[in-house]
C-alpha cells in the first residue's frame, strides 16, 4: 500500500453540542439567502418563489444525502471524501476541485455581499450612494472600484485573522445565529402580517413571468441559497456521538433554510416589485426589511448590519473550509501534504490560507470588471456546487452496493430492496431522483451561465494538470486509485467518534462477510 505522509497530524476536538452543531450549519447555509434573494429575483422575476421552491426541493434531497453520508462517515472531508470512498481517487479529486472552487468563490462572493450590506449605510453616512463610485478602465465600464476596495479589505482581514489563528468562539457563533433567526423570523411574521399583499404577488406572477431562459438561469442561481452543506460533515467530525446528533440537527437545518428561502421570496414579491430587489442586488434583505411598516425604519439598518456580519462570517468558512479540505485531500494522496505546512509561530495552515484567499482576491477583482460582480461570482459558485453535489449522489448510490457493512444511522427515505451479489441492498430511489434533479441544474448552469461554463471547467482542468503532475511525481496512478484501507479507516473514525454501538455493528458485519467468504471457498 502506498504510504501517504502529512506534515502534521491535526486532531479536531469533538465537543460540539446539538444546538452548536445546528448553529454551525445555520451560520453557513443561512447566510446564502442574503445574497441569493436579489440575484434570483433579477432573473426569475415574478416566478421567484416558484424557482426557490423548486431549487429547495432538490436541496432537501441533497441535504438528506449529506445527512446519510455524514452520519455514516463522520469526517470533515465532506463531499470529496464520500466521492473518494464511493468512486475512487480520480472522482474524489474532481469533487475536491469543485469544492475548492466553491470555497474560493465563497471567500469572494460573501465578502462582496458583506461589503454590499455595509454600503446600505453609505447614503446616511456620506450622503452618496455606492452607485456613484464608478469609473471606466479601458474596455471595462461602470467598475465599482470603491465596493471592490471594501471587499479586498474584508478579505485581507480574514487572511490576517486566520493566519494569526484567532478562532471564532462557538458562543459568538451561536449568539449571532440566534440573532439572525430571531431577526429573520420577525421580518417574515411582521412582513406577512402588515405588508404582504397576496394580490400584488399574483399580479407579478401573471404579468412578470420570466422567459424560459431567465427561468432556467434563475433556477440554477437559486441553488446558491442552499450551498454550505459541507458544514454538516465538518460538524460531524467535531461532534461526540455524531450518529445520534447529526441526523437530527441536519434535518432541522435543511428545513429551516428551505422555509426561510421560500418565505422571503414569497414575502418579497408580495411587498415590492421584483425590480427593486434586482436594483439592490447588494442588500436585498435590508430593502425588504425597510419596506415593512411600523418596524421598517429600524429593521432596515438592523438587517443590513446583521447581514454584513453573517456574510463576513460565511466568507470566513471559505478560508477555513479550504484548509480542512486540503488536509483531507492530502491525507489520501490527492494533493501534496506541502499545503498543510503550519506557520512556525502561529501554528496555522498559513500556505493554504494565503493561496486560496489570493485566488479569492483574483476572482473578486476580475468579477468587478464584469457588469455585475455578484452575478458573475454566483454564476461560478453554482457550477462548483452542482458538480460536487452530482458526484455525492452517485457516490451515495455506489456506496450502498460497495459498502453495505458500514452502519447507516440515517438512510434517505424511499428505498427498494434489490438483490446484489447474493445479498439484499436498499436501492435509494430518492437518491436517483435527487441526482437527476441536481444534474439537470448542472446542465442548466452549463447551458445558461456564460462565465460559469467556461471558468468552471477551466478551473477543474487547471487542477487536473496539478493532480496529474503530483500523482506522476509520487508514482501514484492518475485515473486509478491508491489502495486505501477503508475498513481500518472506518474503525478509527467510529472509535474517535465514540460510536461504540456502531463500531460493534460494523465489526460484526465484517466478520459475517468474512465467514461467508470462507464458506464459499
Amino acid at each position: 500500500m502506498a504510504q501517504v505522509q502529512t506534515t502534521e497530524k491535526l486532531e479536531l476536538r469533538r465537543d460540539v453540542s446539538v444546538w452548536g452543531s445546528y448553529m454551525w450549519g445555520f451560520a453557513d447555509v443561512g447566510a446564502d439567502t442574503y445574497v441569493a434573494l436579489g440575484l434570483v429575483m433579477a432573473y426569475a422575476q415574478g416566478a421567484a418563489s416558484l424557482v426557490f421552491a423548486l431549487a429547495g426541493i432538490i436541496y432537501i434531497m441533497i441535504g438528506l444525502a449529506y445527512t446519510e453520508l455524514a452520519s455514516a462517515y463522520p469526517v470533515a472531508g465532506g463531499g470529496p471524501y464520500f466521492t473518494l470512498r464511493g468512486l475512487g481517487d480520480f472522482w474524489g479529486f474532481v469533487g475536491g476541485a469543485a469544492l475548492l472552487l466553491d470555497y474560493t468563490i465563497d471567500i469572494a462572493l460573501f465578502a462582496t455581499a458583506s461589503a454590499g450590506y455595509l454600503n446600505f449605510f453609505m447614503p446616511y453616512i456620506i450622503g452618496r450612494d455606492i452607485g456613484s463610485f464608478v469609473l471606466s478602465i479601458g474596455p471595462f465600464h461602470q467598475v465599482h472600484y470603491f465596493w471592490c476596495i471594501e471587499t479586498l479589505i474584508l478579505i485581507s482581514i480574514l487572511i490576517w485573522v486566520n493566519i494569526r489563528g484567532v478562532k471564532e468562539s462557538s458562543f459568538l457563533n451561536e449568539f449571532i445565529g440566534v440573532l439572525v433567526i430571531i431577526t429573520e423570523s420577525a421580518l417574515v411574521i411582521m412582513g406577512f402580517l402588515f405588508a404582504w399583499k397576496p394580490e400584488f404577488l399574483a399580479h407579478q406572477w401573471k404579468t412578470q413571468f420570466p422567459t424560459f431562459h431567465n427561468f432556467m438561469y434563475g433556477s440554477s442561481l437559486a441553488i446558491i441559497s442552499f450551498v454550505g452543506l459541507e458544514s454538516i460533515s465538518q460538524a460531524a467530525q467535531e461532534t461526540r456521538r455524531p450518529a445520534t446528533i447529526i441526523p437530527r440537527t441536519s434535518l432541522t437545518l435543511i428545513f429551516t433554510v428551505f422555509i426561510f428561502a421560500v418565505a422571503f421570496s414569497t414575502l418579497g414579491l408580495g411587498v415590492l416589485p421584483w425590480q427593486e430587489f434586482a436594483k439592490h442586488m447588494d442588500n436585498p434583505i435590508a430593502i425588504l426589511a425597510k419596506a415593512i411598516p411600523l418596524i421598517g425604519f429600524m429593521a432596515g439598518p438592523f438587517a443590513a448590519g446583521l447581514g454584513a456580519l453573517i456574510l463576513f462570517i460565511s466568507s470566513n468558512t471559505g478560508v477555513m473550509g479550504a484548509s480542512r479540505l486540503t488536509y483531507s485531500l492530502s491525507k489520501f494522496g490527492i494533493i501534496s501534504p506541502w499545503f498543510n505546512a503550519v506557520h512556525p509561530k502561529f501554528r496555522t495552515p498559513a500556505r493554504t490560507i494565503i493561496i486560496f484567499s489570493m485566488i479569492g482576491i483574483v476572482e473578486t477583482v476580475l468579477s468587478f470588471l464584469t457588469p455585475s460582480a455578484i452575478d458573475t461570482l454566483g454564476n461560478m459558485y453554482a457550477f462548483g456546487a452542482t458538480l460536487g453535489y452530482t458526484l455525492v449522489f452517485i457516490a451515495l448510490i455506489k456506496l450502498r452496493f460497495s459498502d453495505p457493512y458500514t452502519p447507516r444511522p440515517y438512510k434517505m427515505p424511499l428505498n427498494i430492496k434489490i438483490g446484489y451479489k447474493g445479498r439484499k441492498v436498499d436501492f435509494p430511489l430518492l437518491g436517483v431522483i435527487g441526482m437527476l434533479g441536481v444534474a439537470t441544474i448542472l446542465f442548466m448552469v452549463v447551458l445558461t451561465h456564460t462565465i460559469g461554463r467556461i471558468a468552471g471547467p477551466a478551473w477543474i482542468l487547471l487542477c487536473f494538470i496539478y493532480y496529474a503532475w503530483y500523482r506522476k511525481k509520487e508514482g501514484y496512478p492518475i485515473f486509478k486509485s491508491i489502495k486505501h484501507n477503508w475498513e481500518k479507516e472506518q474503525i478509527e473514525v467510529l472509535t474517535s467518534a465514540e460510536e461504540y454501538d456502531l463500531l460493534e455493528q460494523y465489526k460484526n458485519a465484517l466478520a459475517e462477510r468474512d465467514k461467508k467468504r470462507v464458506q464459499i471457498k
Partner: protein
Amino acid sequence: MRIFSMNSPKNLTRLDYYQIITSILMTFLGGIILLKALFSGIFILTFLVGGGFLGLGIYRLSFIYRFLKGRKN
C-alpha cells in the same frame, strides 16, 4: 422525521424548545397567510404557501402533543 431527542425524553434540549416555538409560529403564520389569501381572491401560489406553513406547523405540533402526552403517561 424525529423532532425530539429520543435518548433523553424527559429533558427538552434547546433545539426542542426552538422547534416548539417555530412550530407554533408556523401554524400562526400559515393561518394568517391563508386568511389574507382568502380575502384577496383565489391564487394557487398563496394558498400553497399558506397551506404549507399551516400543514407543516400542525404536523410538527402533533409530534409535540404526542411527546408531551407520552411524558405525562
